[in-house]
């Protein structure tokens, strides 16, 4: 289960960082938390409340950031915190929240029910299909929005749909990874993968692998350490990021290449100027 969640968070994270929405995981999980509480208090299913509120937050963020004056990060900061605060306020007033409050905040993969399990599998399949079939449209919209529009891509619908898919992934990940820790699971694998490759497909592949492996290791370790699953998974993702960052630095200093039929490596700066100079010297 943690492998599935780590994988789908890793996949969506690549699109999130390239769209410049790194903070959205953090923000939407808070909004979903507020919604879950409201849903619970008014007697609705946990998922119904979370979905309604986080979709509403996604829509408001999308509408605010569409008008260029306010950047998405500012819109996310305001809207999602307000919805989170509303949920907490309701808890403190009514004192009627039945679901484990702490497991939502910090994550407890062992507390998930059979119903949660089915929902996680379904969301993983559906959102995987979304990214598979709309990959080209998402990439073009995020890379060059205006040209994508001219080319006939309905960028507004694509972006709105993207934010709804994200909200859904975040909701299903919340109970096992935790509201406060989710941002790291979404962004961590993606930025680690981005440091390793300049190729979009490779970045996606690596991000899914890093997310899945780190989540699996975190889950496994939390069993032996008797720790909360969320923070343990986050520690492994941070470790993965540290290793890739070190690797990227090492790769920059020790650059392996071949010219004149001889393969070798030596330390030097991997700057564009150097590369051009090098190509010139060794065509």
């Amino acid at each position, binding site marked *: 289960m943690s492998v599935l969640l780590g994988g789908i968070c890793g996949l969506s994270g690549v699109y999130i960082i*390239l769209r410049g929405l790194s903070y959205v995981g953090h923000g939407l999980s808070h909004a979903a938390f507020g919604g879950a509480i409201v849903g619970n208090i008014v007697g609705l299913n946990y998922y119904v409340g979370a979905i309604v509120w986080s979709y509403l937050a996604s829509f408001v963020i999308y509408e605010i950031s569409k008008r260029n004056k306010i950047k998405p990060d500012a819109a996310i900061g305001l809207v999602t915190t307000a919805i989170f605060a509303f949920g907490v306020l309701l808890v403190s007033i009514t004192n009627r929240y039945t679901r484990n409050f702490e497991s939502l905040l910090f994550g407890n993969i062992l507390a998930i029910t059979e119903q949660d399990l089915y929902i996680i599998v379904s969301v993983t399949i559906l959102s995987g299909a979304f990214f*598979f*079939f*709309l*990959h*080209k*449209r998402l*990439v*073009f919209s*995020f*890379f*060059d929005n*205006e*040209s*994508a*529009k*001219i*080319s*006939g*891509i309905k960028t507004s619908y694509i972006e709105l749909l993207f934010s709804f898919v994200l909200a859904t992934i975040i909701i299903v990940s919340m109970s096992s990874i935790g509201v406060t820790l989710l941002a790291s699971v979404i962004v961590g694998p993606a930025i680690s993968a*981005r440091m390793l*490759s*300049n*190729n*979009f497909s490779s*970045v996606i592949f690596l991000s899914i692998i890093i997310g899945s492996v780190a989540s699996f290791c975190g889950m496994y370790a939390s069993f032996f350490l008797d720790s909360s699953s969320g923070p343990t998974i986050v520690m492994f993702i941070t470790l993965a990021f540290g290793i890739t960052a070190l690797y990227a630095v090492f790769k920059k200093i020790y650059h392996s290449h071949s010219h004149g039929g001889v393969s070798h490596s030596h330390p030097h700066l991997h700057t*564009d100027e150097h*590369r051009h100079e090098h190509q010139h010297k060794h065509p």
Partner: protein
Amino acid sequence: MGSFEYLKLTGVSYGFTYHDFVVEGVNLSIPRGRFVSIVGPSGSGKTTLLKLMCGIYEPWNGDIEYICNDCDSIFYYPSVGYVPQIETIDWNFPVSVQEVIAMGSWNYKSYLPWIDKKLKNQIKDTLKILGLSGYEKRHIRALSGGEQQRVFLGRALIRNPDVLILDEPTTGLDYVSREKIFDILKTLSNNGMTVILSTHDITHIANRSPWVICFNKYVIAEGHPQDVLKEDNLLKTYGLSDYKIK
């Protein structure tokens, strides 16, 4: 179905904040196949005018029409290729030359995430025309300014557009890169493509274009460069005189 005869702008106005026009009362008629350079200072509304022509913005007032008398449908809209200012591109985005050019193709709209063989061959041919053969797998950041500009030109050309609109395609380029771009555009125009570009380069681009529009919020003058690029028009365009349009 025929192609459009001319692009007609009638009283077109647009702005970003209420009552503050960036483009105001523009009347233009650009016949198919014409090579047009729009000159004007920074902030004169050239980019906005080009985006209006592309359909990115809807004019506040006036109409933009691609007039086509022998077209079957009244909803005729030509295929438009747009080349943005390369300063607006995120060069860290993990895409290769092949992926960028593929974005411009109709074929790109398929729902499968990979680029098919037919499109790969088309990209190869386009790169050959642009003098970039063998660059398919390169990351866009690993190219020179002139090469990057040609890649974006390739993205617009791969769909064989009726109208090619370019926002400052030669800004920041060296002599050779600028001449390469200009030669490609001249050839396209000679083959019947309508080319509309904005430029700061009066000496090397506007002066050699068959048709020039001096623009600063309004159309100040248009015509052949030898008739238009005169001191009084340039002073008006660059805001260096007391000229004020009533």
